[in-house]
């Protein structure tokens, strides 16, 4: 279980990094925290010719807000975000997700954007992006572009980012005082990838749910929003009966796979339970006990 050989690059600037990706494209892998890439390489399941280590690039290290929107650079580690008051204030759902990511030693190295770009369908951060309507900022040697989270995740470990592109940051839209959100999951052991998890958020005005987002992870090839369940709760007052109704719809709509950790039926069951628990926690957050 030793890494295969590779050409190593540690560019000091973003421009250099993008030039390297332009030159090596498909044969290159970006190394940020390495907590996903390095096990894959140690198992020799991945064998990139070029590894581009972006740790030295200062442009990628920011935690910042602009007009209430939170932006995290590609080198912001989970642990930094977890302890950041700015993240807690402007993206509490992100903050809620972070303690679920692996264990502390993993969070000390792994990056938020790295987890998004890796696009593990069982991971928390991609689902959080979907629920919050995050925007991914991509750069290449020829320019930059933005992709909405809803368009970013294409399949197992597959995103809309091109081989020569680097995801430089993620932006989460402003969070409102009338919003509540939660990240809930059930995993076999503490710290494991979830058998099923949910990142959810609702916005409530005058006691009525104005909008809702329910994104499940671990149940499909990408994180998946369940619009049918969201439609059930929008326009209604939070109540156990309403959330139970949404839960039923979730169980109907999802068609997860079975694996050695959980059957499809079990995942559907958990998804339904998490729907109730997640929505209740979200409502509770804005002072509506359910």
């Amino acid at each position: 279980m030793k890494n295969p050989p590779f050409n190593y690059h540690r560019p000091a600037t973003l421009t250099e990094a993008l030039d390297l990706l332009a030159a090596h494209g498909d044969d290159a892998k970006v190394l940020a925290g390495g907590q996903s890439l390095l096990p894959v390489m140690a198992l020799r399941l991945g064998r990139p010719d070029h590894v581009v280590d972006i740790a030295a690039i200062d442009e990628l290290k920011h935690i910042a807000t602009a007009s209430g929107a939170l932006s995290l650079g590609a080198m912001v580690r989970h642990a930094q975000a977890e302890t950041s008051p700015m993240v807690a204030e402007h993206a509490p759902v992100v903050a809620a997700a972070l303690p679920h990511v692996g264990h502390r030693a993993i969070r000390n190295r792994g990056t938020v954007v790295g987890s998004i770009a890796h696009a593990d369908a069982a991971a928390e951060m991609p689902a959080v992006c979907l629920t919050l309507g995050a925007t991914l900022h991509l750069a290449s040697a020829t320019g930059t572009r933005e992709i909405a989270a809803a368009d970013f995740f294409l399949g197992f470990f597959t995103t809309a980012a091109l081989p020569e592109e680097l995801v430089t940051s993620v932006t989460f839209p402003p969070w409102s005082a009338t919003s509540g959100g939660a990240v809930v999951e059930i995993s076999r052991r503490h710290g494991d990838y979830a058998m099923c998890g949910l990142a959810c958020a609702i916005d409530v005005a005058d006691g009525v749910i104005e909008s809702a987002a329910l994104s499940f992870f671990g149940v499909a090839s990408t994180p998946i929003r369940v619009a049918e369940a969201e439609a059930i709760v929008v326009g209604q007052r939070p109540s156990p009966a309403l959330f139970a109704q949404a839960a039923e719809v979730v169980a109907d709509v999802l068609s997860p796979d079975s694996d050695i950790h959980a059957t499809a039926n079990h995942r559907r069951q958990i998804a339904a339970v998490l729907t109730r628990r997640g929505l209740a926690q979200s409502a509770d957050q804005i002072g509506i006990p359910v």
Partner: protein
Amino acid sequence: MNLPSIRAAIGETISVTTTINGASRRFDVEPRRSLADVIRDEAGLTGTHLGCEHGVCGACTVLLDGEPVRSCLMLAVQADGTEITTIEGLANADGSLHPIQQGMYDAMSFQCAFCSPGFLMSAVALLRDNPNPSTNEIREELSGNLCRCTGYQSIVEGVETAVRIMGAQQ
């Protein structure tokens, strides 16, 4: 920390400078070599153990700039310019044990002790940030380290013992 651009083709080595347990060290390493392998084989500090080499068991945990990390999930080049503490760096210069070592000794925490370096380093970081953790906080923090011998109870007691020792020292 501003690091210069570097590159190394396959087969080439890179010079990495780190401070390990207070001593400055320089290694010329292939970029693919893990930090764990360099700590063990180049620095000769074999107290850091490799249990799974894919980031789950935690036996290879060291402190990197004070924070616990899996040294099997880092390239040595990623540690360039950092400070590393391993299990060998815990005891005082006079040989007296760090409270976490003393606590684990008194609680008879380990059996085969292959996992012990990881538990010790995780516990050191925990108690630095949270000098009076609850039992559940200890259990949660240590859940990133696997032990196959003990059932964990004695390890949790070791941390609790260290808390008492540190309290008494103040």
